[in-house]
């Protein structure tokens, strides 16, 4: 995309954000030198995150730079039907209420570090744990890939191609890996706080600029009525099914993002967790809501863009606004720096969680159970970087639109939701049925996604989830033991997690 403020000021803001992130990483490292010998300290920040940092790390993990660029463009294209983005982010918090209070307590009692730890503790089944880990790693890998591509496109746009796509990606990824290595979850959470603030300020300035220079919602309404009146209408038929599917798929899928679950484990106490989740229940109005309005207001500026042009609508608006005066010029530079920072802040938490699952669940549980925590952390770090290197190779040939990649990972990831959530409460849950359900659901979702099939307009992930739940509940009813495992009781022996308690 071509931006009026790209070039030198873009390079400066990138350097500024990059150096700030590094400084946060180094400071965290100097203050917490002992974190590299404990999985708890490295991957969960010593379970000591307070309300503010916890809130921002939830926020930055959930909202990426894509939320701003991709969702505005989508709102521009489909109009008010895309309003669903506001409630679907709130649905995530609703799903947290189903399981977070209990899982938080269990995580404390049993020193759980990753969501796969929980599956292992609950089902004691190698099959369930490994399948869960593979699904999570796959989804995280896709998610990370999407962020890498977005960083490259953002940097190339912001610097008007002076800094090529590849150089931008490598610059930020290197910084991200360095501060992640230095401070683990603490670095990630502290940088998330800085990145979250940058994004929020930028988005609000864009909204103000848009209203000042293009006009508000009434004008936009008139333009939409003239150019694409269908974008004002109520979703009906397939549109309505899509709407409901989004609420369910994003609600359940994003709530069981392994990186989001690890933030529940990282809370200093329940009060901090409760407060930050309450704030998260209101954030969608300020983020997804504002981003949606920006997409709608874009009609007043550019009422008749093609699909390809609409992808760049945020950059086009920012360029016009930046030309108005120096304050908005600076604000738009900050916005685009903030968008890139927000992408980095999503990527860093994905990478950290990716490494933690490799460290703890694959290497630590099956390959070398006797390894020390520092060795497990080192293996996680190295394989994490190897995964990034592999994804970078793919990122040089980015897929056409980001949106489909997003849907694909949720479709797969949502298949671990029944095991994680239902497993907490339903004692009868039968491990083999849980495994069969998860596997069948994943395969069905993948099949429908890859073949592009969408029977009855229902998303492939929801079809998979229905099959998954049917097998899980049916199998458990037939084969399960009514007096089965109850993890909340103090009776459970936790051998794989024992090594942690040595600290």
């Amino acid at each position, binding site marked *: 995309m071509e931006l009026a403020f790209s070039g030198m000021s873009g390079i400066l803001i990138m350097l500024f954000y990059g150096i700030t992130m590094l400084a946060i990483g180094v400071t965290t490292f100097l203050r917490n030198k002992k974190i590299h010998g404990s999985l708890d300290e490295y991957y969960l920040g*010593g*379970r*000591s995150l307070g309300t503010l940092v916890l809130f921002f790390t939830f926020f930055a993990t959930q909202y990426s730079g894509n939320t701003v660029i991709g969702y505005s463009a989508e709102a521009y294209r489909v109009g*008010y039907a895309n*309003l669903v983005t*506001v*409630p679907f982010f*709130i*649905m995530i*918090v*609703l799903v947290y*209420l*189903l*399981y977070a*209070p*209990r899982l938080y*307590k269990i995580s*404390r*009692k049993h020193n759980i570090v990753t969501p796969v730890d929980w599956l292992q503790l609950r089902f004691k089944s190698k099959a369930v744990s490994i399948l869960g880990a593979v699904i999570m790693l796959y989804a995280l890998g896709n998610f990370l890939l999407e962020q890498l591509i977005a960083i490259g496109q953002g940097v190339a746009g912001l610097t008007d191609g002076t800094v090529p796509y590849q150089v931008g990606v490598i610059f930020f990824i290197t910084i991200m890996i360095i501060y992640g290595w230095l401070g683990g979850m603490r670095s990630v959470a502290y940088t998330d706080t800085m990145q979250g603030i940058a994004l929020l300020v930028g988005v609000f300035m864009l909204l103000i600029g848009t209203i000042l220079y293009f006009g*508000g*919602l*009434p*004008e*936009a*309404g*008139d333009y939409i*009525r003239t150019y694409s*009146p269908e974008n*004002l*209408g*109520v*979703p*009906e038929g397939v549109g*309505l099914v899509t*709407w*409901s599917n989004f*609420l369910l798929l994003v609600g359940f899928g994003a709530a069981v993002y392994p990186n989001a679950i690890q933030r529940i484990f990282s809370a*200093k*106490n*329940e*009060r901090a967790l*409760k407060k930050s*989740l*309450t704030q998260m*229940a*209101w954030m*969608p*109005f300020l983020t997804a809501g504002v981003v949606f309005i920006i997409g709608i207001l874009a009609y007043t500026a550019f009422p008749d863009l093609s699909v390809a042009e609409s992808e760049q609508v945020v950059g086009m608006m920012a360029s016009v606004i930046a030309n108005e005066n120096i304050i908005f010029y600076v604000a738009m530079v900050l916005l685009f720096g903030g968008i890139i920072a927000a992408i980095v802040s999503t990527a860093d938490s994905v990478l950290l969680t990716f490494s933690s699952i490799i460290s703890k669940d694959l290497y630590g549980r099956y390959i070398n159970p006797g390894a020390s925590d520092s060795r497990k952390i080192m293996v996680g770090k190295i394989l994490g970087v190897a995964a990034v290197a592999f994804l970078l190779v793919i990122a040089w040939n980015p897929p056409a639109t980001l949106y489909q990649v997003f849907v694909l990972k949720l479709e797969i990831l949502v298949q671990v939701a029944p095991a994680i959530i239902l497993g907490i*409460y339903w004692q009868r849950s039968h491990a083999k049925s849980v495994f069969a359900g998860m596997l069948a659901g994943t395969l069905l979702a993948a099949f429908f996604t890859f073949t592009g099939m969408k029977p009855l307009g229902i998303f492939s992930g929801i079809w998979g989830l229905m099959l998954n739940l049917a097998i899980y509940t049916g199998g458990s009813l037939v084969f399960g033991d009514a007096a089965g495992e109850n993890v909340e009781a103090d009776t459970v022996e936790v051998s794989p997690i024992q090594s942690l308690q040595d600290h």
Partner: protein
Amino acid sequence: MQREKREPVRNYKIWIVFGIIFILLNPWYFPAGGDPVLIYGVPLWALVIMGVTVLLSLHITYVIKYHWDESDEVPDREEDK
């Protein structure tokens, strides 16, 4: 009953309310087709959905505040060190 720690999942009434909100969160109850009513440029149905969305956030806030008791069994890690 009084001594038991409150947890959102244990109270079915909370979930009935969430169920009703979820049903209303899907815009199935507006007349299809025709020219949508605009209020300050925003379709009426979108305003109603936003109203229901606010209800969802309010109910979540209420449930977290009044139906999620903090456990005193779990030590605060900061004091641990």
